[in-house]
């Protein structure tokens, strides 16, 4: 569904991604784990089009995506819940969700919003409040729910567990596994390697702009190098 070949990207003259290859197949949950500063967020930004690519190609559902502007990528079925949530703080929770479905005006928008409220009941309670007043965990839920309102085939999740209490992290990861039933493919970027690998089918390990290991999640969790470097075991 999503293939990345030889992807390079730079901030000014400093290259941070040094040629990445990565593949996500339809229906999978794939995770990219790695330490802070490894380039995980830059990778996702390249995929959503908010960070320029200097070399390499991104293909999505058979189309070349590399040069498609960011705002046109959701129409192709690629949605992102960005790092730091990036919700519309001065709009209400409901307006945030409605804007998630900006491309659509049909009846399904109502139903999708109901689904979002089912998934995260706290959002229904706060639907008329300004999103900026939500707690960190609630903002994260809103960011994921908003990304789903765009009816993605593939959802890019950037650090959904960042800064959240353990109980909330578990809840967010539960929601990610639920997406499998909705035929949404997931690419999950996480520092919380153990949590991410536990719910993912496959994983990639990223270090300073390169993929250093990849494989089935179970194998990665069992790998002694990974256990030492990322899982603290």
């Amino acid at each position, binding site marked *: 569904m999503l293939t990345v070949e030889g992807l390079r990207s730079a901030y000014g003259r400093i290259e941070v991604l040094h040629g990445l290859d990565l593949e996500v197949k339809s229906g999978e949950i794939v995770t990219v784990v790695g330490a802070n500063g490894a380039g995980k967020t830059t990778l996702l930004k390249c995929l959503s089009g908010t960070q320029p690519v200097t070399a390499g190609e991104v293909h999505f559902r058979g189309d070349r995506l590399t040069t498609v502007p960011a705002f046109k990528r959701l129409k192709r079925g690629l949605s992102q819940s*960005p790092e730091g949530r990036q919700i519309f703080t001065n709009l209400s929770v409901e307006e945030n969700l409605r804007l998630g479905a900006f491309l659509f005006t049909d009846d399904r928008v109502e139903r999708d919003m109901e689904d979002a409220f089912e998934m995260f009941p706290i959002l229904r309670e706060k639907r008329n409040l300004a999103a900026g*007043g939500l707690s960190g965990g609630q903002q994260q839920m809103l960011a994921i729910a908003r990304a789903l309102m765009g009816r993605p085939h593939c959802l890019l999740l950037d650090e959904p567990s960042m800064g959240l209490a353990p109980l909330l992290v578990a809840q967010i990861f539960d929601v990610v596994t639920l997406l499998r039933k909705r035929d949404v493919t997931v690419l999950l970027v996480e520092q919380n390697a153990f949590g991410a690998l536990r719910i993912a089918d496959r994983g990639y390990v990223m270090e300073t702009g390169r993929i250093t290991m990849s494989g089935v999640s179970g194998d990665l969790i069992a790998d002694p190098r990974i256990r030492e470097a990322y899982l603290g075991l």
Partner: protein
Amino acid sequence: MDALMQFIFSGLTVGAVYALVALGFTIIYNASDVVNFAQGEFVMLGGMITVFTFEAGLPLPLAALIAIFVTSAVGVALNKLAIEPARGAPVVSLIIITIGASIFIRGAAQIVFDKQLHRLPSFSGDEPIHMLGATILPQSLWVIGGALLVFVGLYLFFTRTLTGKAVLATANNRLAAQLVGINTGFMMTLSFALSAAIGALAGVLVTPITLVGYDIGVALALKGFAAAMLGGMGNPKGALAGGLLLGLFEALTAGYISSQYKEAVAFIVILAVLFVMPQGIFGEKKTERV
């Protein structure tokens, strides 16, 4: 008592013009956090283009439409040629760019048109209407009605339409707006066009009362800015209330103190707002969790 009523009528008329300028500020501010100091030039262009096309023999409504259309195009050009290339620059730099643009437009108008003052005939005659013991010109009703209509239209646009919310979303978080599929560049262009059109409409409506010349924009921009600050930057309700209040303050100052102090009112209002309530009457206090 009759005098008071008379001052109120004239205050509301002038205030409606300030409100229209402030509403123009509101749109661009909502889309980009930029205060567009070329807003007064849009009013001038609306008036000037109408005058010149009308004198060339076109019927007044058509002349006004052309003026509004051309001014919108100038607004779009301002965005495309001056604001968009500077994307990523701090908001203060963008504001300075709009000041530069306003000087440029004023200079160009001086060359394209002339340095004279011009007027248009009133839309519905010059017979004063007697009301509540005072008189009001029919043209004043046009100005006040125009401001109210634009306000209602904008209020509905920002609260009821998806496009209006997309404009707000673009200002609030450009990155997230792109991720939900909003063409943020188009939203900016749209808000400049809309804002310029509203400015031009103000110019058309007010020219029969106050006359128009190439240099009327500066004072209008400053007073519209004072009105927007008073009401709360970014809020259409605030722009309307701020504009009308500022007009009333001016008229009452001129009437009861001295007309020499009239021009100072806007500046006193700006200072008072900054000292006492920087968020304005309807402005929201920013509460955000990080």
